[in-house]
């Protein structure tokens, strides 16, 4: 398919937004903003922050969806809504209940100040087995892992060390570029 290797497409770890374990959600958002300003590699901006433990090891990723999820009210009523599906209520009904409860809950402004006090580790996604990829792996393998695991990014390894992040957006750009090359040859 192509000659691309993961190491050619990844964002080096040093250019990625990271925060230490124990940081607040607000710290993470600030760090992300900073990284986006400094990062000029492509028109696509960073969409996540990595969480490091005290030994600088990556223990999780915090994506945009995780931040929004953290902002959502967590009351008993909403957790009851999660159960409605198993009792045979339609997805349309459940969606409407969620909307209704969301409108009754605290406005977003109030939730943001609350969320700024929340700890990142409570909302981050710990990397799973299929989220690691060797830097020498080919584009094909990267595509396979992203598709199979439905990941937005993969952690790139060199030996036992994590050296970068392979983002879906960069992989897609590479695939797109390869497709265009095919077209020219045809």
């Amino acid at each position, binding site marked *: 398919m192509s000659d691309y290797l993961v190491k050619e497409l990844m964002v080096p770890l040093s250019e990625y937004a990271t925060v230490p374990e124990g940081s607040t959600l607000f710290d993470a958002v600030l760090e992300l903003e900073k990284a986006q300003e400094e990062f000029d590699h492509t028109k696509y901006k960073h969409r996540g922050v990595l969480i490091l433990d005290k030994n600088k090891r990556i223990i999780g990723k915090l994506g945009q969806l995780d931040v929004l999820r953290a902002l959502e009210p967590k009351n008993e009523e909403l957790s009851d809504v999660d159960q*409605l599906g*198993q*009792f*045979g*209520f*339609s997805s349309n009904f459940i969606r409407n209940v969620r909307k209704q409860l969301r409108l009754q809950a605290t406005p977003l402004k109030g939730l943001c100040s609350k969320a700024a006090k929340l700890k990142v580790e409570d909302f981050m996604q710990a990397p799973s087995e299929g989220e690691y990829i060797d830097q020498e792996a080919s584009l094909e393998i990267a595509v396979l892992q992203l598709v199979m695991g439905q990941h937005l990014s993969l952690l790139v390894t060199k030996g036992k060390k994590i050296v970068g992040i392979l983002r879906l957006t960069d992989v897609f750009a590479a695939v797109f570029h390869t497709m265009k090359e095919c077209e020219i040859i045809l």
Partner: protein
Amino acid sequence: MKELEKLLDRIIQRININLRELDYDVGPFIKNLVPLDQMVKFYAFYGITPHHPLDFVFRHSSLAGSYFLGKIRTRNSILYKSDIRGDELKHRGDVFHYQKFEIPVNRDEGIDIEDSFLVKTLVHNFSHDPETLEKFFINDTVAAHYANIHGSPSDGCFLGPFATVDLTTMRDCIIGAFSYVQAGEIGHLNVGPGTVWVRSPDDFNFLYHHSLPDLDPYINYGPGRPPQGLLIDFVRDRKEDFKRVFDVVKLDTPVMVPPNASLDRYAVIKPKIHISENVLVAERAYLQNAWLGKGANAQENCYIINSRLEGFNVTAHGAKIIEADLGKNIFVGFNSFLRGRARSRLNVGDECIIMPHTIIDIKKPLTIPPGHLVWGMITGSDDLSLNSMTLKDFSKIDGGRIHGNMSFEGRGARFVSAFRERIHHILEANGAFFNGRDRRGHAQKNQNISFNTIQPYTDGEFEGLFPTIIIQP
């Protein structure tokens, strides 16, 4: 006793196999639920009437204090003070209507209990499962105190105390304490305590969750201990009254009973009782200073105390009505607990439907206006406005509605009419509309039942177990 202990272990293992997907171990919940030495203390008994089949086969089972009527098989099971009432089973030649099918019933239906442990449980009605019309099975199932298995074949299930499963086939499910389920067919489901769920696919879906902190004082249950709470205390406080009716062989009827009404000899009758025409009082019902109007009924494990029911009232299995005045045509659902106070009575208007597993416990007088649907937990007028709706308004729902802790989806009119049809059917089956010639029901058919007793081994390896007993005409 050795054999009985082995039997209990076998039942626990079988249920755990069924519930492995839900990662549930019933052992700690039921190991000491009933001390096994209780099993030798009580005889079992069965009813003989000309109106019901007499067909019992009991094998390798303990049946202490349990009652049987109709066509019943038990095998490898422990039944403690349970009522297995087969007076609504289908008969050979009946036709069962299900969706577009009209299915002929080929032989008399029987209740078949195998590898199960039922404690003070009521089994009644008939199998509503079109796939098993002639066999109302209860396999690999444990039901704790005052559970109701009503028209609900069950395989591999655990029912907590005061749980009710109604007209629903269930497989590999856990039904929490004080939960009510009427959903047609369920499988591999863990229904938490205090859930009230009534579903008819494509028609309606009603769901209410009792708040657990509010429910706890009434009923709570955990591993390693028997059920606790006000509902258990309430029943325990009246236990001695039942002892007398079970100990004495011949009891005089302490009250005037019209010839078309029925008062079971195993009901407790305290002073000041009035029984009108076509009234049905089932075994293990408890009446004290109660006025029952025409066609009213008090089903198994019901308590009606210092109360007046004007007539055509359904007081479903396990319901309790204390210090209350109920108008006509009122349905009080399974295991509901309605308690006024001597100086703060509860008034319920005509045509109200009190949903199963409703708790109304008031300290100030409360009136529920006529024609209301009531559910959940009500301790005063604020709760009433949150947990009730006029039947007229409920009938207008078309789509969905959230009302407090209650979620409803579907057609409210269909829900109300289904309930009304059901109430009418119950009254009909109970003989409330008997006119002296036609529309005979339980109130008329259950008169003049004679009872025989059977006994367990009282010593040795089989202590607590009953020998194989086959009873047929």
